[in-house]
């Protein structure tokens, strides 16, 4: 796209950002400078350009001064670009005709000690932004019809909640579960705190609703084999028994594959003696009433977590231990239960009540220090637990009939595979990572969401909340016709393309394919606008819209030519 022949009228708004910019950069001088830059028809400042009054000022100025492009010299576009884009729209300007100059994170915040230099740099940044803004082109997002199908991977409580709520809104749900039965982790649990209701019974009602719901198509004993495409148009293959059995086209994908309990072979003797078990094993014993001859139970918290290998807290282990300890004491007052812990992670109202009730039932809580964890050994055929208690400054010894290790939740093996398939980042331990703190249910790949313990350890109630929450995110745009993609995307000039294929190898979105003649073609729906292809094309055959060569060259020239030229 070539530059327009007539010079568009650019408006420059310099934001003081309270004191963040205003205290370092000489804002009035910057405004005066901006007025002299070629193409600028109007320049002003504001304390908080992003405030409702600041935005109104911008909208008003666009109309009054017939501005055709907007430059906002303020903070980072990451948080605020959308706001200024909407200000453009509200004043009749195409939303992609705004360019931000980051004079906060990239200027005032890092040059606090040199006001003068910071101001000069801000002038450079504004000049560059204006140079690019003059070459920006309007763009309208293509209409993409909303796909009424949603894939939910994982049939535990989180996936089920998601499926049920979305089905109720009229979406068609493909529910894929790798096991033969739905229900996930809750099938293996005994009781759920804080209500102490039976886990299977609680699950029953949810399962019945899912089975009865005409909008939910259940595929058990199945796994996702491949996913192609992008939001609103995912092509999914699922397999069962090693062969592909179904193909769906869905608009959104919800990952709810859950997590599993760590089986810490070797830790505290686990695996060497059948009296040393995990909390999950204990749940099974409780379900089957398999506690004959158990007189003393010792539970060890943080077994395999909050250590160097896994520095995270698994959130639910303390509550689980307290719950099970309470149940054991209720079974018989002759069962002694000791919980050996580092920090007691109970939080909030219900969990605190659980702690109190458990203590009242005579469960003994013994604290241990990081440096001196408990020791488990087999002596004369008995399992002996030794731990130093800083509270009484003595070492305590227990002969346990059962040692229950509270181990953390860890991501399932499949998580990495799925992460790669869906291009979802994982944290260092394998849990799926959300995009941003204030949007914990938004993820890097558009149209893909993660809920439940696959995202991070949590209990059933929290998993249900998250299942509903991602449902809300996935349901967004059901009533809206237009799906935005952003103005930055790659366009390949087929006449210049030599078919070398470098761009295909490098594209992180797998958005480029060779056509029948060998020319590279992009799928604009998949393209993320990152620019790697354009940068590496030896024929310079690729243009990135909104970051065209002309625009970038104009910015570079503006960077080194400091004369405002007016």
């Amino acid at each position, binding site marked *: 796209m070539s530059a327009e022949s007539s010079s568009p009228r650019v408006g420059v708004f310099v934001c003081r950002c309270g004191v963040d910019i205003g205290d370092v950069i000489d804002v009035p001088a910057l405004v005066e400078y901006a007025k002299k830059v070629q193409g600028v028809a109007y320049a002003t400042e504001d304390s908080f350009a992003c405030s409702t009054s600041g935005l109104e000022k911008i909208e008003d100025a666009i109309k009054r001064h017939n501005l055709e492009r907007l430059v906002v010299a303020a903070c980072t576009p990451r948080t605020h670009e959308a706001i200024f884009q909407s200000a453009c729209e509200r004043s009749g300007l195409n939303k992609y005709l705004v360019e931000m100059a980051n004079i906060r994170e990239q200027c005032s915040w890092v040059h606090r000690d040199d006001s003068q230099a910071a101001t000069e740099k801000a002038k450079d940044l504004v000049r560059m932004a204006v140079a690019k803004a003059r070459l920006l082109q309007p763009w309208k997002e293509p209409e993409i019809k909303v796909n009424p199908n949603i894939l939910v991977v994982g049939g535990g409580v989180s996936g089920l909640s998601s499926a049920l709520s979305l089905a109720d809104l009229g979406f068609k749900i493909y529910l894929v579960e790798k096991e033969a039965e739905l229900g996930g982790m809750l099938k293996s649990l005994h009781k759920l705190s804080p209500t102490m209701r039976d886990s299977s019974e609680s699950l029953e009602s949810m399962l019945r609703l899912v089975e009865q719901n005409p909008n939910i198509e259940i595929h058990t004993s199945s796994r996702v084999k491949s996913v192609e495409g992008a939001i609103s148009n995912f092509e999914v293959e699922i397999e069962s028994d090693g062969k592909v059995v179904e193909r769906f086209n869905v608009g959104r994908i919800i990952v709810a594959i859950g997590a599993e309990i760590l089986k810490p072979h070797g830790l505290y003797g686990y695996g060497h003696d059948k009296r040393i078990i995990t909390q999950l094993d204990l749940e099974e014993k409780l379900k089957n009433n398999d506690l004959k001859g158990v007189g003393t139970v010792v539970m060890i918290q943080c077994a395999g977590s909050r250590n160097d290998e896994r520095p995270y*807290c698994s959130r639910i282990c303390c509550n689980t231990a307290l719950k099970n300890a309470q149940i054991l004491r209720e079974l018989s007052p002759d069962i002694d239960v000791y919980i050996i812990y580092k920090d007691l992670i109970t939080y909030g109202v*219900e969990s605190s009540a659980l702690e109190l009730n458990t203590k009242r039932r005579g469960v003994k809580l013994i604290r241990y220090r990081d440096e001196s964890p408990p020791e488990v050994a087999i002596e004369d055929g008995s399992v002996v637990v030794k731990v130093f208690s800083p509270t009484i400054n003595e070492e305590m010894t227990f002969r346990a009939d059962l040692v229950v290790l509270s181990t953390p939740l860890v991501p399932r093996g499949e998580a990495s595979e799925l992460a790669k398939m869906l291009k979802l980042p994982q944290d260092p331990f394998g849990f799926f990572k959300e995009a941003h703190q204030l949007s914990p249910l938004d993820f890097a790949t558009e149209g893909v969401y993660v809920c439940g313990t696959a995202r991070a350890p949590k209990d059933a109630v929290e998993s249900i909340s998250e299942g509903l929450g991602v449902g809300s995110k996935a349901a967004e745009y059901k009533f809206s016709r237009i799906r935005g993609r952003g103005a930055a995307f790659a366009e390949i000039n087929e006449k210049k393309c030599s078919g070398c294929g470098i761009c295909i190898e490098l594209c992180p979105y797998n958005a480029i394919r060779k056509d029948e003649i060998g020319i590279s073609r992009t799928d604009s729906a998949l393209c993320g606008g990152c620019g790697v292809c354009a940068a590496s094309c030896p024929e310079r055959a690729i243009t990135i819209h909104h970051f065209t060569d002309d625009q970038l060259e104009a910015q570079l020239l503006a960077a080194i030519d400091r004369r405002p030229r007016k």
Partner: protein
Amino acid sequence: MDENVLVIGGGVAGIQASLDLANRGINVDLVEKAPYIGGVMAQLDKTFPTMNCCICILEPKMIECYRHPKITVHTLSEVTEVEGSKGNFKVQIIERPRFVDISSCTRCGACIEKCPVTVPDEFQAGFESRKAIYIPFPQAVPYAPSIDKGSCLHFGGGGCIVCEEACPTAAIKYEQDPRTVSLNVSSIIVATGFEQYDPKEMGEYGYKRYDNVITPLEFERLVSPYGPTGGELTRPSDGKIAKRIAFVQCVGSRSHREGVGVPYCSGICCMYAAKEAVTIKEKYPDSEVTIFYIDIKAFSRDFQNLINKARDEMGVEYIRGKPGEIRENPLTKDLYIWYEDTDTGEIGRKEVDLAILSAALLPRNENTRLAQVLGVDLDEFGFFKVEDPFLSSLETTRDGIYVCGCCHGPRDISNSVVEASAAAMKATTGIRLTAEGSGG
């Protein structure tokens, strides 16, 4: 079908719920008591564990919410009556007058400058004053003044019309009356948040007696760049930079003393203390920071990382032992904290410049009135009651009314936001789980 949902409470949870609903084409009425939306989060400096600037990440949402074509924000408003049932609630809201016409107001600030009345500024936790006509803070949404009738001379019978005279666009409207608005909504989401425990009743810590003993909200204002000191952590007694700081955890929480505090753990104090400690160390690397704790509850993603950063990287001292008392040197106003280090068994007395009491999260006082209006039950502490969080997630005891965020128990921002989305879903779907397994 045009669906309408009422969201009560304009904090981060209420804002998120409103946005979720509106982005699905549902009409939302967001009712907020204060003259601005943003709730407690707007007063905080940073979030944990990411140390993001609170107002920076909240503001885009506040603005999106306020300007969203599907959301009607009613500030200075309260719900007074609720009748009907799920699918068809008839709600009455009272909108208190701002006494300023927002559409003609240019935000020039002349009225505020000329106003003769000063009162303590509650947004700045009382460290500064504001006028009777005021804009709560620079990023307030809506960014417009309102008159605090209670402190205004005009309404006190004094006949003062200084602001009206100063206004160049005749935007001051003393004659504005409270307006009753009737709404018809299919469901209601309660997101009214929490209030901070007042540690004054724990006399052993000297809050309000000793100048340099403060609460977390007061601390957040002190370190905020938009606070009364521009972000300098100065001691209330003498304005000097505090170099030796102590945090006392669980003040008011986990209390089994009759009539004092609450027995539950407030969940977030371990983390906000760590966050505040890191903030201090980042500003003043040579400061000495001690956290007196009982348990360290670092139970979410990256929480433990922040604790490790505070303790291992930045040298924040963690002492396990809840202090018995804080005393004050009457001449210097320095504080002495008596404690037992339960790991070593030693009794110690720590001298500090400033002490922050990590206060419990309590249900709002107004919950009683609101619960009555809504016809829902509160739990024994005064939080909105959710009968069965598993089967009836986020449902109050009345069909069609849901909760999210701290109004039903203490939780952090991330969880509140997740619940807001979940409540938005619950409020618009028919699914109801029961123990008998029937749908609804």
